């Protein structure tokens, strides 16, 4: 385009220098190759793996059912509830209202302090505390006594604990409540990472607090929120193996473990569990990549690289558009 100015001096020869050697890399490749060879050797020659048995068991109906219902569906449900509840708690935590703030703090304090295994056990045994749960006016019988009415019941409905606080729902309750506490901290960090000028600009335009949060702050906070949420999802996927504490038996690891013990050959089943969890985690990674890409609109390497290119083009007096594509 505008090379006539720079053409005054002849262009010097391109530099042909001997590159820096990296002997360390070759050494590490050699060490790694030996280690991999040893590992493969064990896989192939150690007869305890029982590969055929492993492969057959991995796709047995109860295992696949446990994988779909106990592991995948539970992870999905617990994360959806956990993220939604966590976002609400994070907003409460950052609110001007001191009561909401303390409630949110107490919630995260409690549910981050109790181990998931313990929490799941409690959720599975809530029936001991209440054999029947009913909804209505609180303290109705006590109020009734106060006014001389015996056995006053102002209830609109209820359920028997044994029908609800067992199995899937009890597991979901424990995992989701625990997850919400961690997600609340992640969302809070995300919201606080957004430049306060963004909120001011939105408020100066007349947007309400809610609109500012939903339209301006949260979309930008997502960039910070998504990566640790990916971590949380992966942790949740693995923590579904704790569901046995509820107990929930249609779950991947429990089923594989059961087969292993029934056939007096547990080790191949542990390997099978590893393989399943590896596959599922890898799928999650792919999903996270696309979500991260979506929320980095207007930021990130791509935008910055394009900007640099434009800047360079402008400096050289060329049309930016021609190069930036």
């Amino acid at each position: 385009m505008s090379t006539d100015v720079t053409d005054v001096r002849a262009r010097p020869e391109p530099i042909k220098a001997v590159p820096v050697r990296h002997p360390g890399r070759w050494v590490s490749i050699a060490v790694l190759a030996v280690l991999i060879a040893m590992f493969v050797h064990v896989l192939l020659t150690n007869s305890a793996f029982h590969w055929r048995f492993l492969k057959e068991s991995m796709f047995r109906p109860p295992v696949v059912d446990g994988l779909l219902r106990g592991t995948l569906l539970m992870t999905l449900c617990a994360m959806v509830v956990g993220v939604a509840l966590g976002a609400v708690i994070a907003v409460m935590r950052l609110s001007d209202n001191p009561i909401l703030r303390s409630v949110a703090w107490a919630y995260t304090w409690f549910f981050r302090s109790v181990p998931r295994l313990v929490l799941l056990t409690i959720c599975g045994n809530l029936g001991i505390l209440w054999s029947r749960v009913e909804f209505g006016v609180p303290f109705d019988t006590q109020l009734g006594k106060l006014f001389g009415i015996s056995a006053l019941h102002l209830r609109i409905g209820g359920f028997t604990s044994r029908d609800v606080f067992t199995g899937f729902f009890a597991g979901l309750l424990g995992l989701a409540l625990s997850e919400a506490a961690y997600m609340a901290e992640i969302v809070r960090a995300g919201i606080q990472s957004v430049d306060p000028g963004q909120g001011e600009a939105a408020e100066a335009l007349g947007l309400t607090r809610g609109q500012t949060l939903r339209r301006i702050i949260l979309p930008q906070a997502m960039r910070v929120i998504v990566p640790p949420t990916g971590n949380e999802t992966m942790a949740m996927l693995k923590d579904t193996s704790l569901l046995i504490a509820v107990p929930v038996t249609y779950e991947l690891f429990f089923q594989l473990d059961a087969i292993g013990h029934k056939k007096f050959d547990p080790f191949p089943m542990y390997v099978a569990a590893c393989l399943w969890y590896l596959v599922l985690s890898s799928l999650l990674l792919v999903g996270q990549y696309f979500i991260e890409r979506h929320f980095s609109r207007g930021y990130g390497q791509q935008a910055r690289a394009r900007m640099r290119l434009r800047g360079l083009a402008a400096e050289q007096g060329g049309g930016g558009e021609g190069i930036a594509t």
Partner: protein
Amino acid sequence: MVRAENVHKSFGHLEVLKGIDLEVRHGEVCCVIGPSGSGKSTFLRCINHLEKINAGRIWVDGDLIGYRERGGKLHEMQAKEVAAQRRSIGMVFQRFNLFPHMTVLENVMEAPLRVRRESKAQVRERAIELLDRVGLANKVDTYPGQCSGGQQQRVAIARALAMRPKLMLFDEPTSALDPELVGEVLDVMKNLAADGMTMVVVTHEIGFAREVGDSLIFMDGGVVVEAGAPRDVIANPQHERTQAFLAKVL
């Protein structure tokens, strides 16, 4: 259009504004100059209630800002009412504060769409018209991160204008810009002033104040040290502090 009476503002024990009075008439451009830390930005932020004042009163277009007077008692306004008041007051920030996750066009369309709830086609048409007016019709679909500082600030001006404000507040709009880019933003502001917009401009651009301003106030240490017609104050400052400041910046 803007009337401030004896405005006081403290951050904790630090008193930033110690009794500011100001009167800006309809269509007037008022420039505020002064050293950093003099309270000029804080005062500007008080006008649209981004900062709560501790004493005094501010009216914009006859409406008391941030409070309602009932039976001789002041009542704090709800957040929603404050938001409603801000709709007619545009603000431009030193650091632009464009929304980085939205394109230039979406930035300008956001407030009219969400706050005024106008039809999308109408808002879009007007947003493009405004971007054309600030010379950025070709940047509509880019993200703020891909624009230069001067371009971003012009988008910010268009974004504020999209709400059809009665008053525009500028908080050092050119201070974060490369010297080369200052001119393009000032040109947009000059055109805006020529169209009759009422403006309060906190600035270090003495040339702009002299050329475009109808009035000028010089602030230092939280008080208005000197006020008057820009030409008079700049050419012939009465107060010692003003003289010293102008001698350094001119």
